[in-house]
């Protein structure tokens, strides 16, 4: 990308121009990437707007901590912004994006493990039941969904990611293999084990209710 295109002021100007632009025709990822590679910063914004919520949800599913979703999602898109000029369309954009998101999340998990990081949200989650009851009133169904999120957090990372990619994001086995950078056989076996583990965790939790 040219120096002019990397100029932050130019990026802001283009973002403003994008705001005032009439609603653009919905473009596919490939066209947007080509536009970005030819210097149109506005195309990047369209990509971000298209995928931001999916990335944020993916990160949220992995960490179950809303306080860190935006930081990690921003890191993901910064990495995308840096890598997009060299993107060669050898894979689909969103599997590449998911791969970056999963890798960033893994990095973050390692950091947190090293620092024994405990977020405010986790503190809240682990505080006594009485306080939680005072703070939040959930309907029964909502409780069940919360329990699923909790059960998900108990899975090791290598089993948590496939179940999120398949059962929440609905990726195909092939796409999952690309995101997880492994063979389809590995995807199948991890998914199968993850579902079994999830069931074993969920059954007693649901029985307590």
């Amino acid at each position, binding site marked *: 990308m040219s120096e002019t295109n990397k100029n932050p002021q130019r990026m802001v100007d283009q973002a403003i121009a994008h705001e005032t632009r009439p609603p653009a025709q919905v473009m596919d990822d490939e066209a947007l990437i080509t536009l970005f590679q030819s210097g149109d910063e506005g195309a990047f914004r369209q990509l*971000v707007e298209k995928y931001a*919520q999916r990335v944020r949800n993916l990160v949220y599913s992995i960490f179950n901590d809303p306080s860190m979703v935006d930081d990690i*999602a*921003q890191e993901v898109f*910064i990495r995308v912004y840096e890598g997009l000029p060299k993107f060669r369309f050898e894979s689909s954009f969103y599997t590449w994006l998911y791969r970056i998101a999963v890798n960033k999340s893994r990095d973050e998990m390692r950091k947190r493990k090293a620092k024994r990081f405990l977020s405010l949200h986790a503190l809240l989650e682990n505080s006594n039941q009485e306080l939680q009851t005072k703070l939040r009133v959930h309907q029964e169904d909502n409780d069940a969904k919360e329990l699923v*999120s909790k059960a998900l957090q108990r899975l090791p990372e290598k089993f948590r990611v496939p179940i999120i990619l398949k059962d929440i994001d609905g990726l195909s086995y092939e796409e999952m293999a690309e995101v997880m950078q492994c063979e389809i056989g590995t995807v199948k076996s991890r998914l199968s084990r993850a579902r079994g583990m999830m069931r074993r965790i969920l059954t007693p939790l649901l029985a307590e209710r």
Partner: protein
Amino acid sequence: MKTLSRKKVRELLTLYLDERLDETSKATFRAYMLSHPDVEAELEALRRQRELLRSKPQVDPNEWFWQRLSVRLGEQERHAQSVFPFSTKYVPVAATLAVAIVGLLGVLAYQRRAGIENYFFEKKDYVNTIYQKGILQGNLLPLFTNLNKDQVLQFALFGTLPVDAEAKTALRVDENKKDGARIELAENETRKHPAVTVEEFCREIEVTPQQRRSVDSILSSARDRIQESVFLGENKSLAVHADLAKYNRMMISHIAANLGQQQRKRFQKFLVASRSPYTFVVSTEAPMMPRAAAPPPERSSIEQFVVITPDSCAITQLRINLRDLQQRVTATSGNFRVIDERAHALMREMASRRVPVHAPNPQLSVFSGSGYLGIRVENGALTHSSDEMPFEVIAREPQAIHFRFESQEVQDMQQMLEGRARPSVPMVPGESPLPPGSAGVEQVPGHRGLDLDSVISAPRDRRTQVRPAQPRRRHPSPFEL
């Protein structure tokens, strides 16, 4: 229906749930579930679990996500463009601090300069000594490492190469059809030759710029060969390439071949004027015009060497990793005293034994005396390389090329005729002149390198022995670390 394993059921449940089974497998599994209600219940539980996961609360959308991201992208760009790893507002403070620290260190260093200088001086010498010892110990070292073209030309004209800095010790060689190869390492070399330089030589011969390039090329090629031809082991051993003895004549021959008719005449006059013992014979078939310089032939990495230790001598094949050895010597910062010391130690040892060598079939003979070590290799003892000699190079006078050891040789012959000389005995296995595994040396398959056994197993006429006057003692391996 046959009951499937737990693992297999789990895999099939996953594939069934994700609709990855083909119609036949799907029907079979459905039938299996009918006969196994627990599996069907598990499928239902997995379906419910998936429903729950899909309906799991999602994070609330962030309307400001793009704005915040663009701010971060801007910061990222500015940070990438910044030279400093911190905000530019701290640059003056950082610069002041840096100057103050450097100044303070400077003052401290100045106040303690004597101590610092001493420290580094002592450490430098210590480190250098240890380093050089480490490099030189146990290694086969080339005797000549830094010859210049003037020295190579002198070698061509007189067959002599200076060994030590004062040139009091020299290596002399010669090879001809009658006497074979003669190699002599001698101290107090009294025969002084006029110092001839390549510049003077080219001026006298009146060479063209193209011929000058050819002369330079011949000298460079010869220099490389000479440097690859003589090696000294740690414990008084010497290895000389069998072809070294003819390089001087070869150089004269090749230089002459690159000259025109008049220039050849001038070259012959130059040889006389500089008191070179050599001249060359221009045959009637020789081209009148100078020939194009041929590239020097490639030398094989496995070659014949004459190997001498105080107890033995042999013609054997060595594979020497010259590049590695030269790098090691270069790494010693040109401190070659160790190499000179090795040459002198070998001569002293040989001289102290005063052992004339006679072999039943003396194709290889070693002579030593006060301050010299001589080697004679009869014609036919060596497999010569096929280097071309365009013109025959001969001695100008019959006695022009005389070696110190030859006087000793005459005395020995007289002693033999009078029946006073000891007979030579065949070499017995037991110790290796230059053992395999020495740094820079490799055994040659089939020839077994420098292993004594390989020398023993060589044809009888290719080996001989230096028989010591005193009882034999075990010499440590010259390359033992």
